[in-house]
């Protein structure tokens, strides 16, 4: 079936909403993920859906795309009730989905990825040929240029995302759902995406945008729906609302977006990095001669688009990745090869991927809460673990960091993202380290917990410790850091004191558009 044939299925009834969800209910076990959720999206608009993690937005979109079936409720597309049992039904109804984690085959070319599942025959050549033509058309129509014969794995993230969008359009999507589309994009790439979305809207497409980044949603949408704890709590026209109002609706109370900080009074260097060189997993040099230091009473933030060496830098500092050249000093003392001496010298590390690295998901919380410190004699009696002592210790940490439920024997995976992160932070901070390395501290964490985590990081700094922060959230970097370093292509592309960096400057450096607007350190 060609895409034009599919388009016929969705001739709109005049005046009907493009998508209508009526009293959708979904349970996962005892969890009521969607409660009587109703949503109406007008055709030819960009509609934002916001909410904290676990508010039920992804569930709702999974129902729309046929990954889950609603236990109760109705879906109408262009005024007509439809039964969506799987993604084929969704595609036939003209719905296209761009997932947060791309569903692309890295070793296929762009064209091959686009026709995947819509090859249109036993032989590939005719379909490929037609796709090439249509791709060129779509590309010029929507500013979606992508090299058709490049391997997807070789493309930067922003272009991979365009391939996802092209895939949906090629299948005749009239309604495009994007799930957290800017998570891995540099600000400039995100801007380009928004231009594409506006253009799609101009051509009559309907766009549903799921995100937790409020400023973006304010910039690009026509209308905003807010979800909280499985319910749809409010609908607002973007033109008549404010970021503060939406944030309050999301959380259910007022939130402080800015962290209160006293003026910085930095002391001696607690972490010094001299001419550090590190290779990535493929053996390519990913950190090139990087030097910097973090002083006592200072938070230094490293901004950068994912894949520019920040992760490798962090792993090298934590002792998880071999150092090819250069030196790392903690409080003036050089660290050894592995992670053990570093811990003893007072270096703590909150890894960016807490699910893989920071915690052991199938373990009880108390078992996860001693990871890296499991040799501590306080946790054992003679040769055996003293689990009662470990439980007491863990309960204390859970108490101090407000981990809920405060049950040391609960399986780690059963905690919410925010509580898992608090457990990692509790484990690392409660030992009062001199230097704290933190990667993506608030990724996948709800707004309430974000505030708490930020306050704890600032408290460490105020106590005269050094904090090195890596985050994909520019807001977070700008809100917390006393100094900001920008990484691009494995080098430090710029350094700014707090307050003097504008988002535009940082964005340009992050994207490698080196205007070299370097201010004096």
């Amino acid at each position, binding site marked *: 079936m060609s895409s034009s044939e599919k388009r016929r299925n969705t001739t709109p009834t005049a005046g009907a909403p493009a998508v209508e969800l009526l009293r959708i209910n979904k349970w996962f*076990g005892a969890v009521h993920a969607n409660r009587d959720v109703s949503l109406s999206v007008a055709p030819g608009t960009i509609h934002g859906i916001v909410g904290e993690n676990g508010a039920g937005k992804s569930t709702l979109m999974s129902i729309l795309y046929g990954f889950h079936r609603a236990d109760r409720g109705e879906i109408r597309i262009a005024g007509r009730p439809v039964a969506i049992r799987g993604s084929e039904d969704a595609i036939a109804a003209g719905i296209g989905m761009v997932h947060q984690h791309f569903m692309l085959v890295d070793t296929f070319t762009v064209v091959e990825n686009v026709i995947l599942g819509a090859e249109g025959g036993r032989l590939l050549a005719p379909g490929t040929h037609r796709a090439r033509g249509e791709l060129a058309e779509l590309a010029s129509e929507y500013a979606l240029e992508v090299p058709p014969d490049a391997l997807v794995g070789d493309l930067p993230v922003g272009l991979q995302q365009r391939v996802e969008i092209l895939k949906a359009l090629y299948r005749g999507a009239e309604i495009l759902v994007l799930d957290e589309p800017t998570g891995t994009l540099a600000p400039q790439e995100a801007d380009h995406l928004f231009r594409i979305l506006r253009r799609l809207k101009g051509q009559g497409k309907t766009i549903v945008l799921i995100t937790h980044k409020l400023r973006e949603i304010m910039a690009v949408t026509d209308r905003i729906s807010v979800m909280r704890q499985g319910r749809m709590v409010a609908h607002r026209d973007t033109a008549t609302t404010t970021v503060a109002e939406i944030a309050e609706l999301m959380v259910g109370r007022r939130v402080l977006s800015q962290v209160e900080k006293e003026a910085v009074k930095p002391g001696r260097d607690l972490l010094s990095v001299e001419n550090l060189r590190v290779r990535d997993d493929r053996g390519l040099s990913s950190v090139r001669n990087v030097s910097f230091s973090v002083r006592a009473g200072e938070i230094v933030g490293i901004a950068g688009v994912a894949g520019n060496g920040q992760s490798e830098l962090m792993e090298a500092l934590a002792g998880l990745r071999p150092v090819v050249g250069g030196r790392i000093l903690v409080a003036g003392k050089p660290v050894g090869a592995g992670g053990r001496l570093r811990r003893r010298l007072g270096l703590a590390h909150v890894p960016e991927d807490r699910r893989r*690295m920071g*915690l*052991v*998901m*199938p373990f*009880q919380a108390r078992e996860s809460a001693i*990871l890296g410190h499991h040799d501590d004699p306080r946790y054992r009696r003679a040769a055996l*673990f003293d689990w009662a002592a470990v439980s007491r210790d863990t309960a204390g940490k859970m108490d101090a960091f407000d981990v809920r439920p405060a049950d040391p024997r609960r399986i780690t*995976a059963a905690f919410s993202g925010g509580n898992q992160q608090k457990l990692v932070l509790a484990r690392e901070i409660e030992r009062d380290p001199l230097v704290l390395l933190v990667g993506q501290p608030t990724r996948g964490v709800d707004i309430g917990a974000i505030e708490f985590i930020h306050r704890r990081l600032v408290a460490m700094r105020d106590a005269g410790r050094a904090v090195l922060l890596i985050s994909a959230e520019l807001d977070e970097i700008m809100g917390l850091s006393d100094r900001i370093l920008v990484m691009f292509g494995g080098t430090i592309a710029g350094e700014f004191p707090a307050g003097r960096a504008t988002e535009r400057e940082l964005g340009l450096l992050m994207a490698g558009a080196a205007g070299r607007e370097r201010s004096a350190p």
Partner: protein
Amino acid sequence: MSIVATGPAAGLPRWAVLGLLPALNLLAAFAISGLIVLLIGENPWEAVRMLVWGAFGFQEAIGYTLFYATNFIFTGLAVAVAFHCGLFNIGGEGQAYIGGLGMALVCLYLDFLPFALIVPAAVVGAALFGAAWAFVPAWLQAYRGSHIVITTIMFNFIAAAVMAYLLVNVMSRPGSMEPESRDFALHARLPLMHEALGAMGIDIAASPLNLSFLWALLCCAVVWVFMWHTRAGYRLRTAGASPPAALYGGISPPRQIIVAMVVSGALAGCMSLNELMGVQHRLVLEFTAGYGFAGIAVALMGRGHPVGIVLASLLFGALYQGGAELSFEIPGITRDMVVVIQGLVILFAGALEFMFVPAVRAVLLRSSGG
């Protein structure tokens, strides 16, 4: 313990994972076995009655059941220990076989030692040789990335070839064509349970059950303490659950692979104590008889926990012993039929472990979710 809440059965309550699922699997295996029995014109209820009676109906039967269970405990524990480190040790068969060689070398060539020394020496010999046979695939996995499943399977074949060569050419009984060693000296044998208890004035019926059963139970306790109460066990489980987390915690995953496989191989090797030192009293060809493979089903059914492994071993022991009685008492049900029933249990408890998860989940959720 810790593996209860992950995998396909994630989110189900503990009692459902540990009790209900194995029970359902067992029931399914028996239901199909029953159909087959019906098909060949016998009465399935009578067959079940005979099977249970044959396994637990009289003292001698219980002795045999426990004797078989001993083999399963060793090989089941072996598979479980490796599994906690994320490794599928398919080589229990070969490790048990070579463990038997180590044990036999002690019993044949160190029999100048008194009984009190030769027993621990034989245990060490069995464990050491089993561990050594597991070490090679472990090292290849840890430091060269050769997949442990492939290498341990290949090592089973190598073990079989090595043992056949040794028994035919080197260790065979002088003046005999049989591929078996000479008999162990009288003091290089494990006392049978009825002899040992008889010496203490307790009379039980004669059966091959011997003192290695106690060693198997002790191994269960040791594995339990090791796995959940020592740092070594913590390191091993961390590396098994998440290698990146292990690395982060200062634990070397390759080293844990070695530790897990060496312990696993040592446990598998101990199987020979029961079979050879306890009963056969000589080294014979293929004494492992598939126990190493059945250990996989035992470990899966026992959810990797020593208590579960003991229970699953009892079940398999009962199937072996009860099955033998069954084929003896009901001529229509041959020995091969019994193998089919055992195979079905292994199939449902091992390979199709999670088949009923969706159904169980649906039923439980409907009753709790409203």
